[in-house]
């Protein structure tokens, strides 16, 4: 049960879609009853976020709506590509109960573990 939600690199498919994505930084924490995944997607609003689970693979795509600025760009560090990251779900995760929120460009996914893998106390009669 120590396996984490592994990352999958599905470059082939991303390339087939002919769109360049950038992989955003993510942090994952585990607690006895769930995983919490945080992904940085600055410039992504709620309606620009697409989260899907297919074949036990979790895909998070964030389409950016960066603020419009008038003037000439004189110094650039921010990349303009949309975000995409994929993870293989650990078998202990109940995919139907995954929930997500986005707040100030930070996506937080809660991935609850299935009932049968959660630790439980057994009362001694």
């Amino acid at each position: 049960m120590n396996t984490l939600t592994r990352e999958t690199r599905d470059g082939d498919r991303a390339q087939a879609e002919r769109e360049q994505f950038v992989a955003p930084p993510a942090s994952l924490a585990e607690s006895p009853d769930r995983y919490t995944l945080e992904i940085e997607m600055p410039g992504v609003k709620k309606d620009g976020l697409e989260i899907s689970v297919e074949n036990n693979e979790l895909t998070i795509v964030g389409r950016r709506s960066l603020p419009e600025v008038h003037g000439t760009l004189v110094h650039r560090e921010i990349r303009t590509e949309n975000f995409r990251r994929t993870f293989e779900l650990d078998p202990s995760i109940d995919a139907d109960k995954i929930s997500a929120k986005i707040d100030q460009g930070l996506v937080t996914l809660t991935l609850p573990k299935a009932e049968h893998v959660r630790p439980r106390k057994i009362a001694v009669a």
Partner: protein
Amino acid sequence: MDLIRYQASDWPLWSALDRWSSLRDELNSFFEMPFWSSFARAGQLFSGWSPALDLYESNNDVVAVVELPGMRKEDIDISLHDGTLTISGERKREITGGEKAQRTERYVGTFRRSITLPTRVDANKVSATYQDGILKVTLPKAEEAKPKQIPVN
């Protein structure tokens, strides 16, 4: 990105070249992974992290756009000193007790980003907004720095 498998050397020359270009793509994509890009941005002397920043200049304003996902407005400090704009603050670790980190790519702790502005600005008129994890600082140019049209008589 497909990884080309190494094969016996009876390939014609042009396909060998093709193989090199695909190796180059592999290397590029490797350095585009989050670890490297954030490593490149981390300051050398300062122990915290540095967010990415874009700078724009128009006739009337200088605008700085900074990526700061997952912050609270109160935790961002903006200061202007001697023509240098500094954005600093601290991102608090939000993992609660009972959780253990499995993967940590996001930076937590203090950050600082400074940039020398291309022209003089009016420090009293600086304004900032923070939305969707993007900080936008608008710095109106000082009167003497604005371009002037000189009429020909």
